[in-house]
């Protein structure tokens, strides 16, 4: 399938700012999905995108699949109902750092703990972009935002460590400066059974870069390339496959139980 068939062209132009990292994430996501559909590994009619509120959460609305644009922070909770009620569905959550790590942090860790079989793509641009660039739980300490004009006094979350601590079996971190690797990561996430989390470090030149000495998208992408490494290097953010294990997904345990109990009922 050509990825162009997956775009709701009638909705273009999109609402994202020029140079926004979410454009790269949308690009990579639809290409990965088109390849999976082409390979026959996924059925487009059984693939659902779910999102919360924020810039990144607008992405599903541009993709021609079933999609649920929900409330702030809650897409993973909605996804829990979708996946458990119909395990045939391939459920992908597109979320952001504010959506997933602040208001939705509770749902994130519990879905990881349950090992809900969904893929979570978190566009992590350090701020609340949609509302104009306020500090979020991933804003680096000392960084400027509209609500930390003197520098952020709070330490940030490492979202990958957070979900690994909660039990997520498949966790990767990439950046919008690594689109090819990101596409492969999405492929892996769709293949894995269980909770897959991809932390995508992304640029918000409009609301983060310009307050932190990186006015252009190019400068921000260079920063992402220079300050990340697939090896453990001091002073650099670790990217790559951080965990890749197998654990039985939640819906399988639930349906085994249902089968056992309902089978007993019929037998009895």
């Amino acid at each position, binding site marked *: 399938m050509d990825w162009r068939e997956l775009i*709701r062209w*009638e*909705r273009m132009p999109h609402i994202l700012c020029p140079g926004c990292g979410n454009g790269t994430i949308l690009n990579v996501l639809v290409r990965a999905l088109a390849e999976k559909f082409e390979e026959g590994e996924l059925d*487009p*009619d*059984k693939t*659902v995108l*779910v999102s919360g509120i924020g810039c990144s959460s607008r992405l*599903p*609305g541009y993709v*021609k*699949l*079933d*999609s*649920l*644009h*929900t*409330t702030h922070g*809650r897409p993973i*909770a*909605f*996804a*829990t*109902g*979708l*996946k*458990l*009620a*119909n395990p*045939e*569905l391939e459920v992908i959550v597109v979320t952001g750092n504010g959506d997933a790590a602040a208001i939705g942090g*509770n*749902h994130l860790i*519990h879905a990881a703990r349950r090992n809900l079989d969904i893929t979570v793509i978190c566009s992590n641009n350090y701020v609340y972009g949609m509302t104009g660039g306020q500090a979020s739980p991933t804003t680096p300490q000392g960084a400027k935002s509209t609500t930390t004009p003197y520098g952020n006094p709070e330490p940030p979350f490492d979202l990958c460590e957070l979900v690994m601590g909660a039990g997520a079996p498949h966790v990767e971190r990439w950046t919008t400066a690594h689109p090819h690797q990101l596409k492969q990561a999405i492929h892996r996430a769709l293949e894995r059974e269980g909770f897959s989390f991809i932390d995508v470090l992304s640029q918000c030149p409009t609301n983060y870069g310009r307050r932190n000495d990186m006015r252009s998208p190019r400068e921000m992408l260079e920063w992402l390339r220079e300050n990340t490494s697939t090896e453990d290097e001091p002073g650099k953010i670790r990217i790559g496959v951080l965990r890749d294990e197998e654990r039985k997904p939640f819906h399988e345990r*639930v*349906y085994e*139980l*249902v089968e*056992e*109990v*309902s089978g007993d*009922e019929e037998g009895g």
Partner: protein
Amino acid sequence: MSEKVEFLQGNEACAEGAIAAGCRFFAGYPITPSTEIAERMSERLPEVGGVYVQMEDEIASLAAVIGASWAGVKAMTATAGPGFSLMQEHMGFAAMTETPCVIVNVQRGGPSTGQPTKASQSDVMQARWGSHGDYEIVALSPSTVQEMYDLTIECFNWSERLRVPAVLLADEVVGHMRERVVLREDVEVVDRELPEEGEEIEEPFPLEPDDHVPPMPVFGRGHRVHVTGLTHDERGYPATDDPEVHRKLVRRLCNKVRKRAREIHESVGYDFIERESDLALVAYGGCARTVLEAAEELGATVFRPKVIHPFDADLVRKLLDGYEVLVVEMNLGQYVEMVERALDAECVHLLGHPGGYPPTPERVIKEAERIQG
């Protein structure tokens, strides 16, 4: 006729009603005095091939229920005051996205943590107005354990017919009481209208006619629809800057319920016991039990609605115009406000009785005698 007679607690009867109505998904969070519903569902759902999940909070519970509904499965949650407050955001989301779902609220005293183990009817207005924005829901109030069963089924049926969240507005009295209940199995079960599988739908959310209930293009059937809580046009796409789209959308969301108020009242039913008297008593839910007794003793007319929302002002006028009306409720006055709007407000009186128990028949009689002075 296929039926089973049991001696059950109201909350257990509610769970049985849900199963009979076709509910196959429950997401919830423990809270007094509703917890027995979750416990019963966790036991019963796997027996009938359904899924029970205990979520991390009430916000997530209603979110999961809405997700399950979009996966094509009838779904329910159960809670009480504080949990109902947390669910309000998703009541609005369900209304906006036209998602059938059932929310049971076994009311307890509030505000805040209030009286966890005591009865109340103080969420009557929250059930309708608790979320922000213009919307309508269906709310039904049971007075007996039998009605915990019957009205749970009605909640599912009206929720499926109208694609709205439906609230079983119960209270601790009926939730924890034990009575004989007939578990009818030949109940009428309504399923949402679905478009043909695979059909491409140009306009999944038509704006007109203004009381229209469109078929529900549930996920996984090839419709490829976008569903959003933002103001959306006919295609389901965000149209937040268009005042006309917003007006038409919220008008339809309200009118599809409001214009069917009489139909809902007649289908669900109500008690109207007419006696030769200038006095009419009005009560609903657990509180109606003592009021019915008081009315008999007083020789007064009595109206017991089962449908709390949508309120049918014409019906109330038709039944109660010309009476001195005494509304009795376990709060400081909520349903009474709707009655006042329907009738000559000077003829409408309130016995507001918060505290955790319905007023005794003697208390109701004393109040009736006082207003008749």
